[in-house]
């Protein structure tokens, strides 16, 4: 059983961003991901609506570190200024490296 190191990039963002975040992933050749519906909280900033439709999603994508970095960079520059979005990296190991 060969284990290969990969990076897991987690994006937590307002649900309105979903289509655009996924487009960003595809643009970086990351075609597989996992999305969960979550509830979020963040220190009171300039976005203060808490209307029901104001949903939050968490997107996880496992890929090479370089890809994760490039996605993070793009998301940070395009969306972080005006949207609620948080991102972080974790180290994981996978088995079938050819799949990621």
């Amino acid at each position, binding site marked *: 059983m060969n284990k290969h190191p990969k990076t897991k990039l987690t994006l937590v963002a307002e649900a*309105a961003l979903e289509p655009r975040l996924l487009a960003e992933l595809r643009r970086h050749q990351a075609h597989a991901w996992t999305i969960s519906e979550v509830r979020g909280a963040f220190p009171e900033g300039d976005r*203060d609506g*808490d209307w029901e439709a104001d949903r939050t999603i968490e997107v996880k994508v496992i890929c090479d570190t370089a890809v994760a970095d490039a996605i993070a960079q793009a998301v940070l520059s395009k969306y972080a200024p005006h949207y609620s979005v948080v991102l972080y990296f974790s180290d994981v190991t996978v088995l079938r490296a050819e799949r990621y």
Partner: protein
Amino acid sequence: MFDVVVLFFALGVFARLVKSDLRLPEALYETLTIYLLLAIGLKGGLELSRQPLMDLLPQVLAVVTLGALVPLVVAPLLRLAGLSPVDAAGLSAHYGSVSVVTFAVALTAVQRAGLPHEAHAPLWVAVMEAPGLVVGIVLARLALKRADAKQGRIRWDLLAHEVLLGKSVLLLMGGLLIGAVAGDAGVAPIKAVFIDPFKGVLALFLLELGLVAGGQLGALKRHGLKLVLVGCSLPPVLALAGASTGHLLGLQAGGVALLATLAASASYIAAPAALRVAVPQANTGLAIACALGVTFPFNLLVGIPLYLHLAPHFAR
């Protein structure tokens, strides 16, 4: 005496203010939304099947124009009230669009009062959702351009798709068409779901809206009394514009009241969602607090009774 549905709204607000754990499941809220839009559409569609479509064209043009003009009037007023250019434009987009639930409450009030009205009024809702919203967005983008020359281009194709094929217009229009095509005989077997329970479902929806509106108190406090004044003074002004348009179109008393309500109401579902996509710089928190936390209850408690009362003076 208040309509019973208003009491459900009050119960929701109360539950939120006392921090009760009462919540409506999100799936229920989504189901109620889908139901109301379809049911309102069906009702209007039944009426559409009875009259020549061409006769409605002047009305459609008039209400579209009305919606499109609203932000041009509202945005400058909001600037005077001290909002930033982008926030003023953003909020004006909410008033340019309409609140379907406010319309639903007005509709049941008109029926209860026995006022004669154009039964195809749901058509107005469908065509009034987008124009004012789009104008408000354009205003906001212009304001941004002025502040920062290197603003990206707005993707009008995406926005048009979002608004015109979005859930609310699609279900309203779908309901209208189904009602028009199926006619009374066709709709009869689904009456027990889409017609009879309408008002009870509306009551549940208002319970939910009360819960959300009650949660806006924090935002209201943060933005100060200003927001309350704005949210209470815009509706009567806009209602006057709506009633006058109704007068020019020669509507019946109930129709005047409904059009006044539509003009006076502010969108708090479709508009914030569209704004997040098109102008994320605009403060949607502030807009929702104003539209849902102030204008919606104002219309419910004061506005609609007032518009119904005055409508006969504007009627044909």
